[in-house]
């Protein structure tokens, strides 16, 4: 048997460990080395799993079968919608949001009324949930010490009260160190992450013990359970409860974001958006792991005769206890304690912030007390208010726990709380995505939803506890049948949670949308709507300064900041703001719209946006902007944005067009330069023969008595130069025609072998004259190709005359071959001339680049033969190139594609 002293010791040691972790986390945060990484963030989300999960899941499984899983499936699906979560985080950071009440109030024009309403709903909905945690701790103490009873407890004090007091102390120490609530509680988050690990380990340890220690694994547990007809149904999804199933998934999906503690952890405590990437799967994985052993535990508990008559909610403790595993009992106790304390701490911090900022502050601002203490530093007061709120909330929870005891009102409170916070959904999500949603709409929706929730869920739970008459549940209010609280308008066939959810969300959403559509927002609201809905577009930019107009004085505003933030922190923030605006001294800050916005945001971080706005309105003489003006400005702003986007895209298009033009111009210039070069070269080539012709003609003309031999020689040169001139002109014209595509082609079937033969016959005299041998190898049975016969002949003649030109007389050899190579005919003209360098191999195909430039005897060519030949070959779809190396002769090769077989 565990001794009370030992359990107390373990409990104190465990709390000590949490203190240590939290203090270490805070110290590291103060030193600027945050210990909050993606894993810690993801684990801290598991504050979702309270003692209601730790003990209650098994209990729910014994009655509802698999449906307990919906509570964890909903959050899994909701977190996957990361876009929504990131938008919430962005908005909260931009607006220095401190709580869910602040979030909703800020969206609808920083309305104190709305903030107060959300706070009241949250407190009413969640305080019983806190009570449930205290009850779980008390219940587990009862099991550990069955004889003493909770009232006696440890050290003569009610142990539950003791636990509540310790929790309050812990919460105060680590929840209200700083005033600025967006100054995150990193130590607390770290402690919560540790608690998450502890409760997971504890639960899985019990699960493993039961599954593998008492039984022989999962299959054994399930076999035993399904053997009992009453239990078999627990393991199959029950289609008759389809509506409830979907409702619970929706409800838990909303709760993961809307429960004050979840909003605190996910949104307010988020250090870095990118941590979500881990949380999006690690947190669901955590949920999956903590649920694996729920059904085995439920089945074991129900089939174990030793646990007959025990409350299934305590199976996690009673199962190991009944089998004498005391260490495990202690571990399970610590796990349950972890689950309860984690929830209580975060929930209390979140609620106390809301109570302080949205209930206490507005009252304080209206009271004369504040006015009398004109210049006092109020930051201490604010912290005191929060601490009192923490104590009060825990006290409320304790009182509720004492009052409700074993009553249904406590047992069923988990889902009832979920349904309460689900009422925030229309106003919150509507506000994030729908600019037309108004404050009046949000108020109407929240009120309608809250009333329906209270009537269909909260009050019936009171009735079942016997605190009030249950007539309105049984027979309907005033005996009106269709007002029966859990079968409103005759809707039946659902459990009370689904029934409440559908009706309350229907009333809530309906009122929100309807009232929003018939009401008009005021100027502040319209501005905030813009900032919320378009938060990604506004980004980190300063808000539209034109949305505020008026007079403000620097000393008054800085005085306000000093009073509510404390002088040290106020100066620190002022200096940071001045630096951001490029000013050395904050005293030289201009009291303009930007400064007013900065001050209001700083105040909002401390006391909530609604109170901050009220305070600022007191020290600035703000001109009221009419709604039309605001809408104009916003409209203009969005128009300007639209324009600038349009401008941006036009600019991009223009840039692209400019680049294209530049490239086209470059090409034109290149073409122009080439044409210039061409003309210049042609001119040169024309002038050269003309020079000889003119000089020789003039000399013949001037000197009639020239010797006959001399005359004949001159006239011979004149004739050959004239021929050269003619050839050149013809080829230039030919080239021009080919290049411009105006050449005439008569395409027909051509026998390439025959063409080569004819060309060889035609040039035979030239070869004979220079004593160059000309041989050929023409493959037999070559298919004919589609080409222009004369043009093809021109190419072959050109290549042959080139070859004969470059080989040396006497020893020169030229060999022509025609072969079929795949789908082309390949004609090669090989010589044993001086060969070409790699550079020359490409140059010879350029216009007027004659081969053999380095040779002293200049060949008589126009420099256009090869370019023309290449044009012709390419026209037929073939290629012309040269393979050569200096001293190794040259082989000019061209191909002509064969007609496609099916053509």
């Amino acid at each position: 048997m565990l001794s009370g002293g030992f359990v107390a010791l373990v409990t104190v040691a465990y709390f000590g460990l949490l203190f240590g972790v939290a203090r270490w986390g805070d110290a590291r945060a103060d030193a600027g080395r945050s210990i909050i990484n993606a894993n810690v963030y993801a684990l801290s989300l598991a504050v979702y799993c309270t003692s209601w999960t730790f003990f209650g899941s098994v209990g729910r499984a014994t009655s509802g079968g698999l449906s307990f899983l919906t509570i964890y499936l909903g959050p899994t699906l909701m977190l996957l919608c990361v876009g929504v979560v990131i938008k919430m985080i962005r908005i909260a950071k931009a607006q220095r949001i401190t709580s869910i009440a602040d979030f909703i109030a800020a969206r609808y024009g920083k309305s104190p009324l709305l903030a107060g309403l959300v706070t009241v709903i949250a407190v009413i909905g969640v305080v019983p949930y806190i009570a449930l945690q205290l009850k779980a701790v008390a219940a587990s103490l009862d099991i550990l010490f069955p004889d003493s009873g909770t009232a006696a407890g440890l050290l003569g004090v009610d142990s539950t009260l003791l636990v509540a007091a310790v929790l309050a102390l812990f919460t105060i120490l680590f929840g209200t160190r700083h005033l600025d609530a967006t100054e995150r509680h990193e130590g607390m988050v770290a402690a919560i992450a540790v608690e998450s690990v502890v409760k997971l380990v504890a639960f899985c340890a019990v699960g493993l013990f039961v599954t593998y220690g008492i039984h022989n694994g999962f299959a054994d547990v399930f076999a035993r359970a399904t053997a009992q007809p009453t239990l078999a149904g627990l393991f199959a999804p029950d289609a008759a409860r389809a509506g409830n199933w979907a409702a619970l998934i929706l409800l838990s999906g909303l709760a993961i974001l809307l429960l004050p503690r979840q909003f605190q952890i996910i949104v307010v405590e988020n250090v870095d958006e990118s941590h979500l990437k881990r949380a999006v799967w690690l947190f669901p994985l955590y949920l999956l792991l903590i649920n694996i052993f729920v059904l085995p535990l439920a089945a074991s508990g129900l089939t174990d005769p030793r646990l007959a008559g025990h409350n299934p909610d305590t199976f996690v403790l009673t199962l190991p206890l009944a089998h004498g595993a005391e260490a495990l009992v202690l571990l399970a106790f610590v796990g349950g304690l972890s689950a309860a304390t984690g929830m209580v701490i975060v929930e209390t911090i979140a609620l106390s912030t809301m109570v302080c900022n949205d209930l206490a502050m507005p009252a304080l601002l209206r009271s004369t007390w504040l006015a009398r203490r004109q210049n006092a530093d109020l930051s201490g007061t604010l912290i005191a208010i929060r601490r009192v709120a923490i104590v009060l909330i825990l006290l409320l929870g304790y009182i509720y726990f004492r009052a409700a005891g074993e009553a249904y009102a406590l047992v069923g409170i988990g889902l009832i709380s979920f349904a309460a916070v689900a009422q925030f959904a229309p106003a919150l999500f509507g506000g994030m995505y729908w600019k037309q949603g108004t404050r009046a709409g949000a108020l109407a929706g929240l009120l309608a939803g809250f009333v329906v929730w209270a009537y269909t869920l909260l009050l019936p739970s009171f009735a079942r506890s016997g605190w009030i008459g249950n007539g309105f549940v049984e027979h309907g209010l005033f005996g009106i049948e269709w007002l029966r609280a859990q079968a409103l308008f005759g809707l039946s066939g659902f459990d009370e949670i689904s029934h409440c959810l559908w009706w309350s969300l229907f009333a809530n959403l309906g009122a929100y949308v309807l009232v929003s559509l018939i009401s008009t927002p005021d100027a502040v609201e319209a501005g905030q709507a813009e900032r919320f809905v378009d938060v990604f577009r506004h980004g980190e930019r300063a808000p539209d300064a034109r949305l505020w107009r008026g007079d403000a004085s620097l000393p008054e505003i800085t005085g306000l900041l000093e009073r509510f933030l404390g002088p040290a922190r106020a100066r620190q923030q002022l200096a940071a703001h001045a630096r951001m605006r490029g000013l050395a001294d904050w005293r030289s800050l201009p009291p303009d719209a930007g400064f007013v916005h900065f001050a209001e945001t700083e105040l909002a971080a401390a006391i909530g946006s609604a109170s901050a706005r009220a305070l600022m309105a007191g020290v600035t003489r703000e001109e009221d902007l009419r709604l039309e003006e605001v809408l104009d400005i916003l409209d203009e702003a969005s128009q300007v944005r639209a324009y600038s986007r349009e401008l941006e895209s036009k600019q991009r298009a223009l840039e692209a067009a400019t680049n294209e033009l530049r490239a086209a111009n470059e090409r034109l210039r290149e073409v122009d330069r080439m044409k210039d070069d061409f003309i210049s070269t042609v001119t040169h080539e024309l002038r050269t023969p003309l020079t000889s012709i003119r000089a020789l003609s003039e000399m013949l003309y001037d000197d009639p008595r020239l010797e006959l031999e001399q005359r004949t020689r001159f006239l011979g040169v004149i004739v050959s130069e004239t021929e050269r001139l003619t050839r050149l002109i013809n080829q230039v014209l030919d080239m021009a025609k080919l290049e411009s595509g105006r050449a005439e082609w008569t395409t027909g079937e051509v026998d390439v072998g025959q063409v080569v033969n004819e060309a060889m016959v035609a040039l035979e005299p030239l070869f004979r004259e220079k004593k160059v041998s000309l041989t050929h190898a023409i493959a037999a049975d070559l298919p004919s190709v589609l080409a222009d016969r004369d043009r093809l002949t021109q190419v072959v003649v050109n290549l042959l005359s080139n070859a004969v030109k470059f080989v040396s007389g006497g020893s020169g050899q030229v060999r022509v071959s025609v072969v079929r190579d795949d789908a082309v005919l390949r004609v090669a003209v090989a010589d044993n001339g001086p060969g070409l360098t790699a550079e020359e191999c490409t140059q010879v195909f350029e216009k007027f680049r004659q081969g053999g430039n380095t040779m002293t005897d200049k060949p008589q060519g126009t420099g256009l033969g090869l370019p023309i030949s290449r044009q012709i070959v390419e026209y037929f779809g073939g290629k012309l190139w040269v393979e050569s190396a200096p001293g190794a002769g040259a082989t000019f090769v061209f191909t002509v594609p064969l007609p496609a077989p099916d053509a």
Partner: protein
Amino acid sequence: MSKKILIVDDEPNIVMSLEFLMKKEGFEVATATDGEQALAQVAAFSPDLLLLDVMMPKKSGFEVCEALRADPAQGGLLIVMLTAKGRETEVAKGLAIGADAYVTKPFSTKDLVARVRQMLGLA
């Protein structure tokens, strides 16, 4: 003592006609068909005047002209550039690097002879 003229051109027909023309006028003539030969001939033949084609293999007329102008021993040498490219820039370039005259092909034989005589102080 007759003046000596060196004719440099890569077109054999032009060399031939200029050689005939200048010999008929009583000058002593030597020829070269590329830039390198031209420089060698200047050293061996020490002409008074150079008829120098611009577009030539191995060394262009411009390069030959520059090399000669850089040589103090050839200070008195007269250079007439012959070019088939009649562009202004070519003319300017030729004169800038020290040619004494610039004649565009095709040229009038009479004008060329008159020009050469005048430059050599024989007119």
